């Protein structure tokens, strides 16, 4: 099996988000970055498990500048065999999908994995875009996946429930919680990662279709109103009359 895993890099979940230039840009000062949890914990690990079970290779692909190589090395340390970095800022889901599709088209991957969404822009768009650009079926929000021969059986989240689907390779799948268990890279993995191939590719031409022009923080809460624990009737009254929530 030839497996491709798309990995994104996002601010650590504890990051306090701030902006600069009057809200024109995200303030990256002091921000610590991690691999996007859905990509690392579920997509990448399930791809590695399938390779261990069925043989083949796992390629991690990332769109980003050279400074992100340390994050790509982490994916290699967890167990990807090789990596590709498209040398450009990941400016939008369409940009990222276009770049990855340009690489994947020539390679003939059996399964292309993404995480269900990134935790910075939460678009949940790259997987579907890739599938369209590669003319492949797309199965989103997979929580369980088995592969036998060239057919995968995938359980996926739907609104208010789950669905079991079958699909033949090649296809694109996005991974949700449940598809695998997070793996912590060990010393041996980290050492081996240093020698694994990381290919750098220049980006393909792209025409921008949309961009973020302004950022703002949600209005702060004006302060909590404490209610006497002995008087829950009062809380109910406030929720009804003041908040109009019930």
């Amino acid at each position: 099996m030839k497996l491709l895993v798309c990995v994104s890099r996002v601010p650590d979940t504890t990051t306090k988000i701030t902006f600069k230039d009057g809200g024109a840009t995200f303030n990256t000062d002091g921000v610590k970055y991690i691999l996007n949890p859905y990509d690392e914990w579920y997509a990448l690990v399930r791809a590695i498990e399938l390779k261990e079970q069925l043989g083949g290779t796992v390629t991690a692909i990332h769109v980003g500048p050279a400074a992100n190589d340390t994050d790509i090395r982490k994916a290699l340390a967890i167990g990807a065999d090789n990596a590709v970095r498209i040398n450009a800022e990941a400016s939008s889901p369409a940009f990222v999908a276009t770049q990855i599709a340009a690489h994947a088209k020539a390679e003939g991957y059996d399964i292309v994995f993404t995480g269900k969404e990134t935790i910075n822009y939460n678009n949940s768009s790259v997987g579907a875009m890739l599938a369209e650009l590669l003319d492949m079926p797309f199965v989103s929000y997979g929580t369980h996946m088995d592969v036998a021969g060239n057919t995968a059986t995938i359980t996926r989240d739907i609104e208010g429930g789950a669905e079991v689907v079958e699909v033949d390779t090649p296809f694109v799948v996005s991974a949700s919680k449940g598809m695998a268990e997070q793996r912590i890279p060990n010393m041996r993995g980290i050492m081996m990662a240093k020698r694994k191939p990381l290919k750098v590719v220049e980006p393909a031409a792209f025409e921008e279709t949309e961009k973020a022009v302004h950022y703002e923080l949600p209005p702060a809460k004006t302060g909590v109103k404490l209610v006497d624990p002995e008087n829950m009737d009062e809380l109910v009254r406030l929720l009804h009359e003041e908040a109009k929530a019930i």
Partner: protein
Amino acid sequence: MVLVFAETVKGGFKKAAFEAVTYGAKTAAVLGTDCAAVVLGEADNAGQLGEYGASKVYQLKSDHLANFDSQVYTAAIAGAADKIGASVVILSHSSTGKSLMGRLAARMKAGAVAAVNAVPTNDGSFKVRKPVFSGKAFATYEVSADKKVLSVMGNSIQPEATGAAVAVESLDVDVPAPRVRVKEVKRVEGVVPLPEAELVVSAGRGMKGPDNWGIIEELATVMGATTACSRPVADSDWRPHHEHVGQTGVAIRPNLYIAIGISGAIQHLAGVNSSKTIVVINKDPEAPFFKAADYGVVADLFDVVPRLTESLKKFKAS
């Protein structure tokens, strides 16, 4: 023309469909054009979408639409948009909408903004807002492409039924055969799924163990609320995974979020802080959640939750 894909579940419309049509009608007004809706497969009374502002309602019927396949649905919606000359397509930001969004944008070569939570503006350029960083901030996007695809965040607009039902028309659009084979669909019946819920009762590690959830379920039942939980609660299998809210779980924005025995870690807040009203019940007055709350009760949850339930019962009865 603005085209709204109105989602159905087993032939019925959910609130998200009415929200999307209302959003579509308002977007059309901003652009000085009309709003049409398209329904895929079976639907009861699709004409009612007219009440929410669709001037035309189209229904595509094909065996190929019986189950969701992003490729098939994309072909159907893009085909319909093409037929009626729609340059803006509106989807719900549901699991179906999200699975379509990117594909449809790539097919139509459109600019795409996912999870929009406000009606666009159009003073020379088309701008629309969405939450980013899992709800920690908002971003305004400018869409430069002629064609646009937007998915509307649940509960970010109230459905407005101010118009009248319209006749349902068919459209001749080629619908390809699915390549994804649906084997089984399991739906939890009788409860409102979390992303759509207006009232949510959520509990965390302060509950001490899974056997104590009776008081949470009773409170939720009395309110007609959906239950949720913090991540460690789902990770310990005290509650099912689909209840996990937060940055790495479901992001929600109900009218009312009641957090019980949850500390309010930044990753938890990220997924819930867009809720309109937040009530926090925690015995630790220093719990960070109080800073993000509208109402707080500093007390032992095992003591106060049953009494809140009693007060609500009294309120409902009156």
